[in-house]
């Protein structure tokens, strides 16, 4: 047997893996977004726009294409889902100067995305205040039906909480190969979203900061090329 022999399993349903959170039916988009059909709402987290230029300010000129890469990914998801509302779960901009550094091309992309739909920006620790360049609505958090959307997960029991902040990734080892992917993490009560930003990076879901959010068993939904893969937390490996 060799690594490549795994039969590819049947195609996932095109709308994405469905999960239930506090009674709400949500779809996991393999591009790293969450779709809530009942509200026609698309949720994305941790875009960290202009992280590249934030490094450049400090003398490390990373390629300046991260914002447009992230926005192109988002534009693709929006074109597929055509949501009425796009909800950003915080840390949409990497730092306070990011709104000013955002280039014309990127602003145009944002304008295209927002055309004909509501943009709701939840505050994050990187972007606590409203940013005039973004437009739309700025909120500390959003409660809607059984769900609460906020940037940083709260401690303790939080039925129906959808959050970002931690950039979860999961690591597996199969047949001598290490695989590390961005993922959703959920125990059915709380959901932590993967980061969408091209330069966002990740934190292993077995890290104490993340694992501590879940009292019992939880699952990682790893982002693959065309679908998500659900793996129980105990089957994922810690990094360090």
């Amino acid at each position: 047997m060799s690594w490549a022999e795994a039969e590819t399993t049947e195609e996932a349903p095109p709308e994405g893996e469905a999960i239930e959170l506090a009674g709400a039916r949500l779809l996991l988009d393999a591009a790293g977004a969450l779709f809530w059909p009942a509200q026609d709402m698309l949720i994305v987290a941790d875009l960290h726009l202009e992280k590249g230029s934030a490094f450049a300010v400090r003398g490390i000129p990373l390629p300046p294409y991260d914002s447009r890469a992230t926005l192109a990914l988002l534009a693709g998801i929006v074109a597929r889902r055509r949501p009425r509302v796009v909800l950003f779960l915080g840390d949409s901009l990497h730092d306070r100067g990011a709104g000013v550094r955002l280039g014309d091309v990127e602003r145009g992309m944002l304008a295209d995305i927002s055309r004909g739909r509501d943009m709701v920006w939840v505050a994050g620790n990187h972007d606590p205040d409203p940013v005039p360049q973004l437009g739309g609505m700025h909120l500390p958090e959003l409660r809607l039906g059984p769900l609460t959307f906020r940037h940083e997960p709260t401690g303790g029991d939080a039925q129906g909480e959808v959050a970002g902040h931690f950039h979860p990734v999961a690591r597996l080892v199969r047949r001598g190969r290490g695989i590390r992917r961005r993922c959703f993490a959920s125990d059915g009560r709380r959901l932590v979203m993967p980061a969408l930003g091209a330069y966002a990076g990740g934190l292993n879901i077995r890290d104490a900061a993340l694992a501590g959010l879940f009292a019992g068993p939880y699952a990682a939904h790893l982002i693959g090329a065309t679908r998500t893969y659900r793996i129980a937390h105990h089957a994922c490996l810690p990094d360090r």
Partner: protein
Amino acid sequence: MSTDAVLSPDDLLPETFLRWFAARGWAPRAHQLDLLAKARAGRSTLLIAPTGAGKTLAGFLPTLVELARPANRPRGLHTLYISPLKALAVDVARNLERPAAEMGLPVRIETRTGDTPASRRQRQRRDPPDILLTTPEQIALLLASADAPFLFGTLQRIVLDELHALSGSKRGDLLSLGLARLRTLAPEVQTVGLSATVADPERLRRWLVPQTGAGEMGDVVIAPPGAAPDLSMLDSAAYVPWAGHTARHSLAEIYALIGRHRTTLVFVNTRMQAELLFQELWRINEETYPIALHHGSLDVSQRRRVEAAMSEGRLKAVVCTSSLDLGIDWGDVDLVVNVGAPKGSSRLMQRIGRANHRLDEPSRAVLVPANRFEVLECRAALEAVRASAQDGAIERAGALDVLAQHVLGMACAAPFDADNLYREVVSAEPYAGLSRADFDDVVAFNATGGYALRAYERFARIRQRKDGLWRVASPQVAQQYRMNVGTIVEATMLKVRLASEKSRYGGRILGEVEEYFVETMSPGDTFVFAGEVLEYRAIVEDEVRVVRTAAKDPKVPSYDGGKFPLSTFLAAGVRAMLADPTRWKALPAQVREWLDIQRLRSRLPGREDLLVESFPRAGRHYLVAYPFEGRLAHQTLGMLLTRRLERARLRPLGFVANDYAIAVYGLSDLSLAIAQDRLSLDDLFDADMLGDDLEDWLAEAALMKRTFRQCAVIAGLIERRFPGKEKSGRQVTMSTDLIYDVLRQHEPGHVLLRAARADAATGLLDIRRLSDMLTRIRGRIDHIALGRVSPLAVPVMLEIGREMVAGEAADALLAEAEDDLVREAMGELG
């Protein structure tokens, strides 16, 4: 004065020196006198001499003679000695101090390495010694300081030791650029290159003098070769295995050889093999001979202890990797055993040279092949060494990432003029062909990242002043440069520490392993390290916690696997031998029989053809090709063939490669597809696979990402520990893979991607070699459809399942992991 005139020692050596030689009962050797004459004539010179020929003394004699007359020279640094190893610099300093002291020469000799205390380094800048012994990285640092003109302005001579080991690498590129600057600071400086025998001395000779486009060369002095080595191949009485690299079958014979000699060096190709062989030798070590282990992953203090014991003659044998290939004299070695295939004739000759440092006696060496293909390879190597035939050097141009580092260093030294710096850079041999456009891209990279999207003008690291000179934007930039200097990008290393049951801090540190090796392990996996079988428990910060285990068979097969691919030269030797049955007489009977049956059942690979076999086995269909181009090139080929077969809907499942062959296997009957013209082998192996297919694959290839990371670090785009110190506690890590993805997507022509592609051509992906092979075999594919596996295919077939190939089928593995868990859950129900 003509250097051709015959000069006697009396003309060239002062009285003091003649007396010193005489007192030792020595006479100056011809090549030592030749170098003195070259020095007097003001000629830069390459000295090619075997180990033990007094090469180092030859390099320094002119300097010592000049320094013996203190009256007629200015104060200041006279001679710079640069070696690839700091241990070698320290060793040479010691060897130089003795004659200097014995002759009472008024000479100050000092070393400068990463270990030199800061106070002495500062003093060396103010008050330099006569002779400074150092490394390429230290030279780069010194040249990037404002004191460089003062420090090097008095320089008369530069001695470059082990030049063959430095040139042709990124460290060599860095050194060549430093050399170009040194020549600007001290235009009259002479260079002396010391080298082992190489296939192309002309390249090294060009290295020594400034290039202006005419291929200028330094002079060359060739010392007579030592006695021919006494070289043989172990003709094992035991059964020679089909595959594998442990040479277990020859263990008793290796042990017997150790017993019959004073001190034996046992060379292997990988650290893993060193570990295994060391363990096996101790298992049968009834005489309790002091046998030690030496490789680059072991803790430094442990390595130093082994080296000390070695030079004091307290060891009977050392099992080692190329960590002992270079330089330093390890005392009284009278036998070299090379286990496994030598992979290249030049490396083998270096290793053989480790035995017996007396020129007039032959070095003794025994080759121990670990499998049948290695028998052929050892045979080819043996013939190459007897004919003193060297591997050809790989043609490569100076790396752009190294140039980027150098350009920033030059801006740190003083504001530079781009025209002048370009002229200086192209005077260095590796950069002689550098275009002005590439140079300007590198300057732009240092300024603002050099992106087509000019977003970072405000944050530039170097800026052009009104007078046109480029200067660093702030002192922090110079600080960043100093932290980043050098071209050795170690994979992130994790310490291996014995976990203690009692203390949570754990026990002894055993050494270090690459992080990517640990990435492939799960807690509970076992592996061999530092001579023991260890069980992996956890990673705590930057440490791998392990416990000793009694398990016999380590589960994780290898780390740092086959480092060196088979050289093109030896590959040609093996092909030639296979194609000519009259030469099989020299091979062991078992191997002859193996080839005879191959001839009967299938065909033999031709000298220039590519033999391709297809056959069914156990419900699968195999395609086995024999390019003999080394494992790295074969792996790249395997990736590309698999992609193509997939596109042709021939359902490949995987592939496996070794140094000699590649096997692709799948569910479709490939023999039938070829017979029905649904699959054309000419198309399958067409060189156009190096176009879009390669590009597509590179987008995802882990090896390419690792290559890019190295370039990004060397060029100073990112710091060595990226992103470094920015977070504490929870660690959101951003890897260079993300940067690679974004850059590749938006600016595929960026200078750093060009640098990474150039590396991939000769490095981990060996694309250049693959491309040469595909061109060579065009229209020369020799296909045979077989009913069953051929004898020649067995070795590579045996690798299936043993060797993990990093492919891009990660999604298939994820699906499999998900299914396992589903099964597990369903099982619980039932």
